[in-house]
């Protein structure tokens, strides 16, 4: 069962353009939504993350938009650069509850390969 669905699978954008990647989730217990960036031959690295109590979070050229009622969130990369070319993963995490039973078990989307042409 795929609890986090990510689209598109691949995306090609011209330098200076806007890249948009979308994710939808099913489990309403999720309360932390990170985006990871992965370059070839490397492990994923946290890019930006959001909690469901806010609708938007911006860090430099990267923005997460969150729609709790629709159970969707998206990553926007403004002024996309060739150096942004990478694979992007959305993910979702239930809370570290008092019993500690979730233990930080991330559920990832399928990934989006972003290519930014110069």
């Amino acid at each position, binding site marked *: 069962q795929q609890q986090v669905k990510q689209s598109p699978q691949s995306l090609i954008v011209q330098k200076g353009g806007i890249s948009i990647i979308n994710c939808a989730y099913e489990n309403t217990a999720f309360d*932390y939504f990170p985006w990871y960036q992965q370059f070839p031959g490397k492990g994923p690295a946290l890019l930006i993350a959001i909690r469901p109590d806010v609708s938007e979070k911006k860090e430099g050229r990267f923005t997460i938009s969150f729609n709790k009622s629709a159970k969707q969130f998206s990553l926007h990369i403004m002024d996309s650069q060739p150096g942004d070319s990478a694979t992007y993963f959305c993910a979702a995490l239930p809370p570290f509850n008092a019993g500690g039973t979730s233990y930080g078990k*991330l559920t990832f989307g399928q990934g989006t390969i972003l290519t930014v042409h110069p």
Partner: protein
Amino acid sequence: DAGITQSPRHKVTETGTPVTLRCHQTENHRYMYWYRQDPGHGLRLIHYSYGVKDTDKGEVSDGYSVSRSKTEDFLLTLESATSSQTSVYFCAISESSGSYEQYFGPGTRLTVT
């Protein structure tokens, strides 16, 4: 890579042989995770550990076992490797419940022939 090393980085093995992958951290983080990455599936959790000798199954645990005898080491064992276990394996670590960020190692590319 946040003080995380994985060994080996590349391995080719034959079907039916046992394989052990090692994750070593120098951050003294409590939580450790093993994921596998396959095209079209993103990363999927295999097993995780919430302390020394405390481990549990993830989403795709069949055919895998783990052990954690020290805070810094988390071992993933394929008891009898199959071709379906050809994948890239990532270890990740996380602090206690105050921080949700997971830090990933560089990965191990395993090919089962």
